[in-house]
């Protein structure tokens, strides 16, 4: 009974959009917003779409590349470093790293566009020119490096925050005991810290996988998925189909079908993580009984 308002909210804001998207996926809706059902037409079209395999591979590379290099590994390194130095300095660095989270994505993207600008006025190329080298068209030469770095630097802050608080929650007696037992800093991290923050590590891996699967805003703003779909990921492809398709055709139906597939991929990934990391073991039965 008490849960009813919550259930309603969940239905309205979480479940309904998924259902609507899925249903829309079976129409050929365009800018006229007509519900013309075409059966599995969109899905057949997807299987014939010559771009889809490329975009699928792109999505996997982007998601797991960013995850492995930045969101987990780099986040962990930041957390370990900022908790190993003095509290005040560590806090300062963590706050610094969070700043891009507060700034609008467009500003963040604009800064990267300036850093990576192919002209001599970009930050990197300015440095190259100063060293007597020729400017490089960073974005079109290395689209993969660019989207992984730009997403990862901002994405690492989430892992950094969670890991840092998990590390700080480890009773210091464990760390002191390890030190007296003869552990160096690396051994302390490997034998004590990492095993004790196992759950946050798994949680961030699972959570960031899902959020990377659906995120495309920095790619859109920085490379537009280019050059020639080289850095286009699934969610961006769906967005392009829906909103910026050629000559303003707005293929909502096809885009919704693409989005539905992404939801399925996300669901499969969640279930896989759930099983793999045994999240069920983490959950304690509620202490209060609600009837």
């Amino acid at each position, binding site marked *: 009974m008490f849960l009813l308002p919550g259930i309603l909210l969940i239905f309205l804001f979480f479940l309904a959009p998924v259902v609507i998207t899925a249903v829309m996926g079976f129409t050929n809706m365009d800018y006229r917003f007509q519900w013309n059902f075409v059966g599995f037409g969109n899905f057949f079209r997807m299987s014939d779409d010559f771009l889809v395999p490329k975009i699928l591979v792109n999505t996997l590379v982007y998601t797991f590349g960013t995850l492995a290099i930045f969101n987990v590994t780099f986040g962990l390194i930041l957390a370990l470093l900022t908790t190993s130095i003095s509290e005040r300095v560590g806090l300062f660095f963590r706050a610094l790293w969070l700043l891009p989270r507060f700034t609008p994505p467009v500003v963040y993207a604009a800064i990267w566009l300036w850093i990576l600008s192919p002209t001599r006025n970009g930050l990197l190329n300015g440095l190259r020119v100063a060293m007597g080298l020729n400017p490089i068209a960073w974005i079109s030469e290395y689209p993969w490096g660019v989207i992984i770095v730009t997403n990862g630097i901002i994405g690492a802050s989430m892992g950094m925050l969670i890991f840092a608080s998990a590390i700080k929650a480890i009773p210091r007696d464990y760390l002191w005991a390890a030190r*007296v037992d003869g552990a160096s800093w690396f051994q302390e991290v490997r034998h004590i810290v990492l095993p004790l923050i196992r759950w946050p590590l798994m949680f961030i891996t699972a959570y960031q996988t899902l959020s990377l699967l659906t995120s495309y805003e920095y790619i859109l703003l920085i490379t537009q998925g280019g050059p020639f779909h080289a850095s286009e990921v699934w969610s961006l492809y769906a967005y392009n189909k829906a909103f910026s398709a050629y000559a303003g055709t707005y293929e909502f139906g096809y885009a919704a079908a693409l989005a539905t597939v992404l939801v399925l991929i996300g669901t499969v990934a969640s279930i896989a993580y759930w099983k793999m990391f045994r999240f069920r073991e983490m959950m304690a039965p509620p202490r209060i009984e609600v009837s």
Partner: protein
Amino acid sequence: MASIKLEQLTKRFGKVVAVNNLNLEVKDGEFIALLGPSGCGKTTTLLMIAGIYRPTQGKIYFDDVLVNDVAPKDRYVGLVFQSYALYPHMKVYDNIAFPLKLAKVPRKEIDRKVYEVAKLTKIEELLDRMPGQLSGGQQQRVALCRALVKEPEILLLDEPLSNLDARLRIETRAEIKRLQRELGITTILVTHDQVEALTMSERVAVMHAGVLQQYGPPDELYDRPRNLFVASFIGDPPMNLIPVELERTDGRLRLVADSFVLPLAEEWENMLGQIPEASFTLGVRPEDVRISTEEKANALLGEVFLTEPLGGGTLVHFMFGEISFRVLASREIKMDVGDKFWLVPDQSKLHIFTKDGLSVREVGRRDAQ
């Protein structure tokens, strides 16, 4: 094994002085206790010896070698934490083996040493369990094993018994003492429990507010407390401490507070005669008072206010006006509330402290130097 010397050791945390100018020597193979109320700096001292805290000032020597800049892992120190700090993700065996694994001891050797130390503390059958499955007493033994397995030169124990129940505490007390004697390892015990300190160690260092108050064998602390703090901290039931005025009537010295009037024996004449003050604090241990039904010399007449049977004896409260005076009486004496008795304190065991809290005996000694 090693001896320890602390020289003018000071630790500050911001503006707080946790340990202030501490000088302390521990002989090779000795068992000493750091005793004091919480926040007195005893654990901070221990962590400085272990190398976890860096002293703000002063020096730490092991066997006359300065170790201020030696990392914890190179100090050959075993430390048992109050929380035991057993690594929750490792089995008991791996917990104990951890220091050896880090030292790259061959696997067979590790095996042998772990079983040896487990046998010593009788926990062989627990080696396969996780720490979370053990009782407090078992965890304590595992922590001790982990500290001992690397055969340290110095064993540091931070409140090792405070998480055990009363009965287990008494057993473990004896157990640790036995182990220490068998291994002959230099040991420092940190505790707030005077009984633990007095029963286990050869010498006790009483600390208060970061300052060492007195350092000596248990008997000495008990019989000759240097100052008011040690007098009040050591002893159970605690010493009676009464603010008194020194008066001279008919050529005899008396200590007076309200209706409490205690004539002093002549032996005190010399010691008190040198001190110009008239206000003192009198300390009398409840067990240093004889109870008599007849009038005696240097005695006071008191009325029973309250009795507390302690099993072995009875703690009797006498009231002198506002002043409560506790006496430990043997069970044979039958007494009821309102009964009157003559109380005869043992004059040689009185403790008299100046306004600064220093024992009058110390003042005499200091002047003699």
